[in-house]
C-alpha cells in the first residue's frame, strides 16, 4: 500500500504537456454549463461563444483568419483531413508523423476512392475535383531527408523539375514544422519558395511547433496547417486544421453543419476552450524557449560525458540541425529503448522511445531510419521533451538516474559478455 512513489520527472511533453492552469480554468467553466453549440437558445449560444473565442485565439496563433480555422479532435485528425482532399497527388517528407505517413498506404487509397465515387454521385463539384487529381495518379512520394534530419532541398528541387517536365507535379507537399521525435526544424520558407512558382500547395504539420514558438512566415502562407492543443498546455481532444485554400479540402465526417460543414459532429467544447486559453496564453507571453534550450544542452552534455566515461557509444539525432529547444532524441550503443523506458519509469522518469508502439509491437522509428540510422540504433533511441513546467534541476536529476538505470546495466552487460567470450575462447584452446 505504502510503496514510496519516487519523485517523478515528467519529460514527455511531445507526447502531451501538462494542462496549463488557464486552460484548466477555461475547461472547468465550460463543464459547468449545458448547451450544444448548434442550438439556438441561450445555452447553445453560450457554448458557441466559447468556441468562437477559442477560434479567434487559435487563428491568431497561426496568423490566420478565424474563418480559416476548423476544429478537429487533434493533430492526427487535422493531418488526415489535410491530405484527404489531395490524395494521391501528394509528396510527403520522410520521417513524418504516422498520421501523415499512413495516409499514403494502399488501404487509405482504397478508402479514398470509395468515398470519392460516393461523393461523385452526390455532387458534381466533387467529381470535377476527382478529375483534377486524376492527373497525378502516382502513389504518394516520400521525399528524402538528410542524415541531419532536414528535408533535402536539392532533391526536392530536382524532383519538382522532373515532375514539371513529365506533367506529374503533385497537388500537395506535406512537411512537418518540427519533427516530433528529433525536434529538427524544417526549412519551410525555402520549401515554400520552391513550391509556390509551380502552384504546388504546402501542408505544414505544426503540431509540435505552434503554441510553443511564434508563427513563422511559412506557416502564415501555407495552404494547410495542422495544430494540436495538448502539446503546449491545452487539453487532449482538440486540435485544428487551418484551411487557407478550400479547393484542397474534402471533409471526412459528414452529417452536420458544424465547423461550416467541414467537420460534422458535436464540438468538444471544453477541450476547444482549453485549446483557446492555451493559445491565448502563448500569445500573451511566449514560453521561455531559451531557458529550455539551455536545459536541453546541459542534459545532453551530461549524457555525452557519462557515456564517454563508460566507453559506450552515444548518438544524438539531428544535433547539428536547428531543433526545437525542448526536444532531445538520443541512443546508447546497444541500448534497448523499451527496457530503458521501463527502467526510467521505475525510477519515476517519464520519457518516450523513438519507436511507434501499439500493443507492444515496436517498430523502429521511421524518421531515424530515414536519417540513416540502423534498425538497432533506432531501437535504442529515447526521446526527452520539456515544456512549461520543467524545473531547472532536470538535467542533473535526469543524467544521474539515466546513468544508473540505463548506462550502468549496459556497462555491466558488456563486462559479463566479454568475460563469457573470454571463457569460451579459453575453453576452446584448452
Amino acid at each position: 500500500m505504502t510503496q514510496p512513489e519516487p519523485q517523478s520527472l515528467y519529460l514527455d511533453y511531445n507526447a502531451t504537456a501538462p494542462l496549463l492552469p488557464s486552460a484548466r480554468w477555461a475547461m472547468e467553466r465550460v463543464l459547468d454549463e449545458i448547451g450544444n453549440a448548434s442550438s439556438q437558445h441561450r445555452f447553445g449560444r453560450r457554448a458557441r461563444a466559447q468556441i468562437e473565442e477559442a477560434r479567434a485565439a487559435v487563428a491568431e496563433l497561426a496568423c490566420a483568419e478565424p474563418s480559416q480555422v476548423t476544429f478537429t479532435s487533434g493533430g492526427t485528425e487535422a493531418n488526415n483531413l489535410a491530405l484527404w482532399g489531395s490524395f494521391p497527388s501528394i509528396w510527403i517528407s520522410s520521417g513524418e508523423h504516422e498520421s501523415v505517413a499512413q495516409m499514403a498506404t494502399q488501404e487509405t487509397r482504397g478508402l479514398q476512392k470509395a468515398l470519392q465515387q460516393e461523393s461523385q454521385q452526390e455532387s458534381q463539384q466533387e467529381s470535377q475535383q476527382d478529375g483534377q487529381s486524376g492527373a497525378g495518379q502516382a502513389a504518394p512520394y516520400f521525399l528524402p531527408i538528410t542524415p541531419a534530419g532536414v528535408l533535402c532541398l536539392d532533391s526536392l528541387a530536382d524532383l519538382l523539375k522532373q515532375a514539371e517536365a513529365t506533367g506529374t507535379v503533385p497537388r500537395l507537399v506535406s512537411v512537418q514544422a518540427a519533427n516530433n521525435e528529433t525536434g529538427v526544424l524544417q526549412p519551410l520558407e525555402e520549401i515554400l519558395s520552391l513550391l509556390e512558382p509551380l502552384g504546388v500547395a504546402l501542408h505544414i504539420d505544426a503540431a509540435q511547433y505552434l503554441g510553443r514558438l511564434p508563427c513563422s512566415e511559412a506557416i502564415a502562407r501555407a495552404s494547410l496547417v495542422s495544430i494540436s492543443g495538448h502539446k503546449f498546455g491545452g487539453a487532449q481532444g482538440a486540435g485544428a486544421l487551418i484551411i487557407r485554400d478550400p479547393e484542397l479540402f474534402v471533409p471526412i465526417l459528414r452529417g452536420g453543419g458544424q465547423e461550416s460543414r467541414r467537420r460534422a459532429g458535436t464540438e468538444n467544447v471544453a477541450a476547444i476552450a482549453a485549446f483557446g486559453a492555451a493559445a491565448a496564453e502563448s500569445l500573451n507571453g511566449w514560453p521561455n524557449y531559451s531557458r529550455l534550450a539551455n536545459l536541453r544542452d546541459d542534459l545532453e552534455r551530461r549524457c555525452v560525458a557519462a557515456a564517454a566515461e563508460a566507453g559506450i557509444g552515444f548518438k544524438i539525432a539531428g544535433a547539428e540541425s536547428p531543433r526545437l529547444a525542448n526536444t532531445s532524441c538520443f541512443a546508447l550503443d546497444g541500448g534497448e529503448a523499451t527496457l530503458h523506458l521501463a527502467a526510467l519509469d521505475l525510477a519515476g522518469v517519464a520519457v518516450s522511445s523513438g519507436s511507434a508502439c501499439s500493443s507492444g509491437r515496436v517498430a523502429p522509428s521511421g524518421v531515424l531510419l530515414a536519417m540513416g540510422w540502423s534498425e538497432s540504433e533506432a531501437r535504442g533511441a529515447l526521446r526527452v521533451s520539456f515544456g512549461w513546467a520543467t524545473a531547472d534541476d532536470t538535467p542533473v536529476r535526469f543524467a544521474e538516474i539515466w546513468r544508473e538505470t540505463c548506462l550502468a546495466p549496459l556497462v555491466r552487460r558488456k563486462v559479463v559478455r566479454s568475460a563469457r567470450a573470454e571463457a569460451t575462447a579459453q575453453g576452446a584452446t584448452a
Partner: protein
Amino acid sequence: MIGTAPERVVVAMSGGVDSSVTAALLKRAGKEVIGITLRLYDSPQVVGSRTCCAGRDIGDARRVAERLGIAHYIFDYAERFRENVIDDFADTYLAGATPVPCIRCNERVKFADLLEHARELGATSMATGHYVRRVETSNGVELHRPRDDNRDQTWFLFTTTREQLAFLRFPLGDLEKSEVRALAEEFGLVVADKPDSQDICFVPDGDYAGLIKRLRPEAGQGGEIVDQQGVVLGRHKGLVHYTVGQRRGLGLDRAGKPLYVLKLEPETCRVVVGSREALLAREVPLHGVNWLGEQPIAQVRAMPLSVRLRSSQEPIRAHLTLHPQASEKPALRSPTGATGGIGGTGGIGGILRLDEPTEAVAPGQAAVFYQGTRVLGGGWIAPPAPPATKEPELARSETDSPLARAMG
C-alpha cells in the same frame, strides 16, 4: 516500514490466470511487483489469419496489472522468439524430429533474455506461474515436482540452470489449480474464468504442418512410406505431417495389424513404418543435457533414476550415463542444411537405459530425470542413428539402438 524499500520482483505475465495470480500473491506479500508481458509473435505473419489471442492476452495482462496497481511493461520479443523458437520449431520438424517449443521458449527466451532484463531493471528475483517447486537446501537450490501432480510442468523446465533457478521463484508450486482459480476470484482478476491455453501459443489453430509449410515451403515435399525392409507401402504428403509413434493418418493399416511411424528420414524423405513392437525402445540417446545433480558428469554411470519421456507420462525407471559431448555440431541436418532442436548445442550427452522398454520416443522431445520429486535435469532425445559420429558411446548406441535392432 519506513526506509526499507520492498524487494523488487519481475513477474512474467502471460495474461493467463496462473501468472496473474502469481503477481497478485507477490503483491500481497509486500513485494514491489513489476509485470512484464512479452509480445512473442506477429499474429498475422506467423499464424495465419485465424488468430485472435496475442493481443487479447496482452490486454488481459495489462488489466490485471491495473487491478493490482503494479507497474506493467510490454516487451517486444518477436524477433528473439522467431529466431530461437519458431525457426527452431520448423527446422526440427524438417530434420525429421518433433520439437517442444515451450521448452525452447523457457530456455532461450524467458529464462535467458527476460531474466537478464529483469536483473537490469533492478529486480532481485523473477517469478513465473509455472507449477513447479523450488526448494532451497544447504547444497543449493533444487527444482521439484509441484503439489498438484496434474499440473506438473517440470518437464517443460528441464533446461533451467542452477544459476537461473537461484534467481527464479515459482509461487504456485504449493497450490492446486482449483486454489489458484479461487485466488483469482478473491483478488477480483478478470482472468479468473479464462480457460487454460491448450495449443502451442503461436499455432492457436493446431495446424503445425500448415505453419511449417508457410515458413519452409520445402516441407510440403512428399515421399515414400516404407517398411523396415525398405519395401514401399505408399506415399506421404510431407514429413511434417508425421511424428514417431503415430498411427492415425497413415491410411495403411493392414488387416488386423496396425502400422506405426518408426522413423522419419529427412535425407531420403521417407517415413519408415512398422509394428507396435518395433516401436519399443530400451535405450534413448540424449543431447544437450542439463545436469542438476551434485555428482560430476563423469560419475554419472548407470545411475538409477526415474525419467519422463513425454510431458504427461508418469516417471519410469531407468539408468543414466552421461558423457561430455565433444562435437558442437548437431547430429542431424535437414535436407536444406537447417539444424533443428534435435542437435543440442554440445555440452553433455548421455544414454538412458530404460528398465522396461517403452514405446515411441520421438527425437526432438525431452527426457527429464527425477529422483523422488526432485528434478535432476534432462536432455533432448537424439535420433537413434546419428550418422558419422566419432563418439564411441554414440557409435555404440547406433548398433544398440532400438530402431537399429528393430530394423536389423
